């Protein structure tokens, strides 16, 4: 059976990916910063606990990637796929309101953490026709006015994908990114709630106003669902090895009109 390591296991996209990979017959290591939520999810999809492995991650643990990879390899011997679904930012806003700590956190969570995972996992993925998929964002190539730390970090991640794809081709590892458009996830809601409202926004309704604003910008008139994003991630993981170095934008067409 093939083995996958999925990060962001407590998030909406991560859980949608895990569910589909389980249906596809994978053994799955689930990395998450919310072990309680992850364990509850894991119990619901794998009551016997025979096909999933919980990889709790302390937010301040610099060795988390090594520990996660070691646990998966100890259990199942190798790794065939990585789906890096963790990331995001705690809050957003115009560039002049983003603090240095926000910038550092954005790059740590969205670039350095995925890189650390790959660095630790590659020795166990070589010559296995393995797949690595990073979740980036459509704002990597179509930035708005609100999240400079997030969009630039995701742009760095997309560039890293291209670099890693070339570097790892000779050991038969494909590397790609999936860049979702506005997707209705719990992470998005948390970020909006943590972001200060503009003076023009009613404090009680500004999250709803922002969600509506996002929906109105989408050609289909709604936000994406995590399932829609997960379908493309799982397609890449389970199919063509000839896909590599690509950034597949799953955004309902919004980036075409920006």
């Amino acid at each position: 059976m093939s083995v996958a390591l999925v990060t962001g296991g407590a998030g909406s996209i991560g859980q949608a990916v895990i569910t589909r990979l389980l249906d596809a017959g994978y053994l799955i290591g689930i990395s998450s910063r919310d072990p309680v939520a992850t364990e509850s999810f894991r119990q619901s999809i794998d009551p016997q606990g025979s096909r999933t492995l919980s990889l709790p991650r302390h937010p301040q643990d610099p060795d988390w990637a090594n520990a996660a990879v070691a646990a998966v390899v100890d259990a199942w011997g190798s790794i065939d796929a990585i789906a890096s679904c963790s990331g995001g930012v705690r809050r957003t806003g115009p560039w002049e309101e983003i603090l240095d700590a926000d910038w550092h956190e954005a790059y740590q969570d969205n670039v350095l953490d995925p890189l650390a995972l790959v660095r630790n996992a590659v020795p166990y993925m070589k010559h296995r026709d393995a797949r690595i998929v990073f979740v980036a964002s459509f704002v990597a190539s179509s930035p708005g006015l609100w999240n400079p730390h997030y969009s630039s970090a995701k742009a760095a991640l997309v560039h890293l994908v291209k670099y890693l794809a070339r570097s790892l081709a000779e050991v038969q590892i494909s590397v790609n990114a999936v860049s979702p458009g506005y997707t209705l996830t719990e992470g998005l809601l948390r970020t909006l709630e943590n972001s200060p409202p503009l003076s023009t926004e009613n404090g009680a309704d500004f999250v709803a106003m922002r969600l509506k604003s996002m929906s109105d910008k989408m050609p289909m008139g709604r936000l994406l669902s995590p399932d829609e994003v997960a379908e493309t991630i799982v397609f890449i993981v389970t199919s063509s090895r000839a896909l590599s170095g690509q950034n597949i934008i799953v955004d309902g067409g919004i980036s075409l009109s920006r």
Partner: protein
Amino acid sequence: MAASLLTNTDMRKRILIVGSDGNFGKELVRMLDGQHVVVGIDYAEKPWFIGNDRGGGVGGCDVTAVEDVFLLCQEIPHPIQGLVYLPRVRLRDRLSEVTLESLLDEFSVSVGGLVHFVQALVGTQGSSSNCGLSVVSMSSVLASRVSSFEGLGYHLSKAALEQLVRFLAMELGSRGIRVNAVSPGWMVRTSDDLDNLIEEVRTPLSRVNSGKSPANFYEVAALISFLLSDASQSLSGQVISVDSGVSNLETSFAAIGPLPDNWQKS
């Protein structure tokens, strides 16, 4: 018309494949047939005709003539939920051989034909039937790289095709119509085909692909199948390269040089 019209069932999509008898088209039909209702339209003798060419365009369809395409689409049972447009590679003109006429010929099939089919499907099916239509065309790594393997017209028409895909996706998105393209590099029928290439082609090809095998027909067909499916319902306006990473390289494809006449051993 050399089309096979099958009975539709509620659970499957009706997919129209233009160019279904080409080397790649046959593989695509093989993959989709059974999952979906496949309506295949074959190439005819003249490069811009499809279906049975009985001379003068009668009985066939000139894809460069929008009226012909409309008539063809009206004959096919509706609704059509997928269109795969596989323009035939026509000319390998070197720069010294290129004429304005030859460039226009290439564009009229590769780009104009797709426009006509989209216009015809949107026009004949009505707005209520358009939701869920997925259009997939075939681009090439040579839309953004250069190679002496193919002529100038091919390079230009593929670059234009990719912009057309984005434009159509933007224009038709509000109708629930998705438009995408797949962009292969060198394709082989099966991975075993590599052994059939002469050394002068196989070695530089392997170097360009960083040691990875080129995509085979099955892999490209699988991507098209995904783009036709509801699993990709949020994907539109995208050109997805399935080329073992060739388009990710900074060097141009031209390193391979001209394709020799005897590039296959058998």
